[in-house]
């Protein structure tokens, strides 16, 4: 079980290899990767093309929240291993933002736990995104009600 907050990119293949190295008790590995979109939902790509996205966080609490989310997943599913990597700093469209990896004996636990981790991370972990558009405008991304609704199904 591990969590990391970092400015540098991650390599999904390398992370899976590290997680499964020397283990024969893992039957399923699920990964989720979140990427920076080139335009905000509902906005025209032509007029609101994204130049950069900057992620701010709360050092200390971020790590504590990610660990709490991971521990909550472990209470619900028999995971053999898990990993959360979240990037901070200034990113460009197409860049990786977040990686969740879950490993279990059988696929169902890994699939469900990966969704759970992402749903909780999005509403609990203290990260904030600020967008800068190519036309010079920019603002903080608003939280989405759909993210709050997504965690309701795990209660």
């Amino acid at each position, binding site marked *: 079980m591990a969590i990391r907050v970092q400015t540098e990119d991650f390599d999904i293949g390398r992370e899976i290899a590290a997680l499964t190295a020397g283990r024969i008790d893992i039957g399923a590995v699920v990964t989720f990767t979140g990427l920076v979109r080139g335009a905000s939902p509902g906005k025209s790509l032509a007029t609101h093309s994204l130049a950069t996205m900057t992620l701010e966080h*709360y050092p200390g*609490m971020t790590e*504590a*929240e990610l660990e709490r989310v991971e521990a909550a997943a472990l209470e619900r599913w028999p995971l053999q291993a898990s990993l959360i990597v979240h990037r901070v700093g200034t990113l460009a469209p197409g860049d990786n933002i977040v990686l969740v990896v879950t490993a279990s004996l059988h696929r169902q636990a890994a699939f469900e736990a990966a969704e759970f981790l992402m749903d909780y*991370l999005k509403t609990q972990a203290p990260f*904030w*995104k600020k967008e800068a558009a190519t036309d010079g405008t920019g603002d*903080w991304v*608003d*939280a989405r009600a759909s993210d709050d609704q997504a965690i309701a199904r795990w209660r």
Partner: protein
Amino acid sequence: MTVRLLYFAWVREKLGQAEETVSLPAELTTVADVLGWQAQRSEIHRNVFTSAGIVRVAVDQTHAQPSVNIKHAREIAFFPPVTGG
């Protein structure tokens, strides 16, 4: 009581500071009290802390509802709803 106050995202930008160390008035006992105290510090504070109750609070790096006690807090953070992932 001396406590470290932290500000993030647009709360930080609007207040023009990332953190400060303050002596909170002794009569403040809950998160709701501290939000009310913040709101009366200046016109800018009033705008930030009364904007439809949107500002979230963490006490000692744990999410805190308005009823949470802050009497022994060392660090109180104020921020918008989170948008990671």
